[in-house]
């Protein structure tokens, strides 16, 4: 009986009077691809913030591979193998691509306290960086300032930052948002090929992409989970149709 990769029990997050996340319980098995869908304002990103630790839950329990992480700080969760991308590009615009990747690599290492060695000389860093950059299709860009990259390239870098440390649990928040169809295809292709050693949760607006990738789908509406099932089940469910196309 192995532990689920992620287990949420009655998780809620309230801001002032608003319940952004309301009593959500779900379980994601190791290696699973779970897609979270729901209309705007359904609480998807807030849920991700609760899982990654960017926000403290108001109530409920979060367990990651059996360990209770409910009260752990965001940095500590990353140390335990949680990786995440953000809906709004949050790479370091003033730094170079290599420096961005270096920070991601150093984030979970004691080497971040090194006061002496120039970053570019760190053992194995450039190799690792180039390997990742080749993977996402950004070869030879290590010295470019992120400021000079196109939006699509920044989204690719965003993915690299989340992947470079080999996370156990990967949270992708609309990774393809704002990309052209070709870029979307390419990025989505990379995501699909990721190994099953990484458990994946993805927020996605595009139903086709979502349903193409997902093992299971969770539907959120107004902070609550209204349905969970296989891609096929969700696609034909009338309640989901109403939530998306009917009155909100």
């Amino acid at each position, binding site marked *: 009986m192995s532990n689920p990769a992620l287990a949420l029990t009655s998780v809620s997050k309230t801001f002032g009077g608003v319940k952004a996340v309301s009593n959500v319980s779900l379980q994601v098995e190791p290696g699973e691809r779970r897609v979270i869908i729901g209309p705007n304002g359904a609480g998807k990103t807030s849920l991700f913030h609760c899982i*990654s*630790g*960017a926000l403290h839950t108001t109530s409920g329990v979060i367990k990651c591979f059996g360990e209770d992480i409910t009260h752990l*700080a*965001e*940095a500590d969760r*990353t*140390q335990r193998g949680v990786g*995440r991308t*953000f809906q709004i590009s*949050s*790479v*370091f*615009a*003033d*730094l170079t691509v290599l*420096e961005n990747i*270096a*920070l*991601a690599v*150093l*984030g*979970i290492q004691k*080497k*971040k*306290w*090194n*006061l*002496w*060695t*120039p*970053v570019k000389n*760190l053992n194995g860093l450039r190799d690792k960086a180039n390997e990742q950059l080749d993977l996402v299709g950004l070869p030879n860009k290590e010295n470019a300032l992120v400021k000079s990259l196109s939006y699509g390239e920044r989204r690719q870098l965003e993915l690299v*930052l989340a992947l470079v440390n080999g996370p156990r649990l990967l949270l992708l928040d609309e990774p393809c948002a704002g990309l052209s169809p070709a870029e979307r295809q390419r990025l989505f292709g990379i995501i699909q090929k990721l190994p099953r050693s990484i458990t994946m949760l993805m927020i996605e607006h595009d139903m086709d992409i979502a349903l193409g990738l997902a093992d299971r789908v969770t539907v959120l509406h107004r902070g609550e989970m209204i349905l969970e099932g296989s891609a096929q089940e969700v696609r034909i469910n009338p309640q989901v149709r109403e939530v998306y196309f009917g009155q909100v």
Partner: protein
Amino acid sequence: MKKTSHIAFVLLVIALILPQLASTYWVTLITQVFIFGMLALSADLLLGNAGLFSLCHAAFFAVAAYATAILQVRYGWVCVWAASAGIFSGTLLGCIYGLSVRTRGVYFILVTLAMGYIIWGVGYRWTALTGGDSGITNVPAPGIGAFQIENANQFYYLVLAVVVIVVFAYQKLVQSPFGLALRGIKSGEPRMHSLGFRPARHLYLAFVTSSFMASLAGVLYVYLNRFVNPVTASLHNNVEAILMAIVGGSGTLLGPFVGAAMVLGLRNWVSTFFEMHLAIMGLVFIAVVIWAPGGVIGQLQRIVERKNSEGQS
């Protein structure tokens, strides 16, 4: 990269032969530039890298100066021990004041302003300890055992040696993972949390390190001046420390020293023939903001970059 090390080498050579060519007036002035440049560099460790604008670095400078002076003049401690205690005192204050890294932005500016004022107030009011307005005078020349510093040139070389070591270590620090983490915090603190960093810890260490540098400068200062008074910890001095870095070029190695040269040069040289040197300095600050936000070094870098891209096209 090669060009900068050539420039550094040339500057070092000039610095080494300067006392043989220039009068005592200039040697003393350049010594002051080194000392205040180090103070400005200490403040710029926080500003240029982590984006934190501190108005209290002259407090560490002053505490180190006062501690050294009091121990040597009033209690007869030997230079080596007095100086060490001075550096220790300033750094200890830095460990306490380092709590200020819990705040950001304008609040950090205001907290450090208040903290700087406390030290000035203590220097000014706690007369029994600090001598009040008159401060501590008659600080003897520095020396170890039989080897005493006897003139301006010898002191100049001592200060130059310290500056070279400090600048070398600073360069290493800034290029290291720790330095990169500071720049990451400045560029996107929320993302740093999600990458596994605890920004407050890095900022605290940076703060304490910068207070150590400022203390070192403060000890050298009291041996140069042979006295210290509350003006050393004044708001004016605190403001100047960081403004020197900005005017010279924040985030660069030479910027704080260039800024110190400009400010001290203005004060010492301009004031001999024109009495409104503070107004001139004010105009320089205004000019920097409007026309040269990267400071002197920043402007030079832009000119070089433009020449480079012109050369390519």
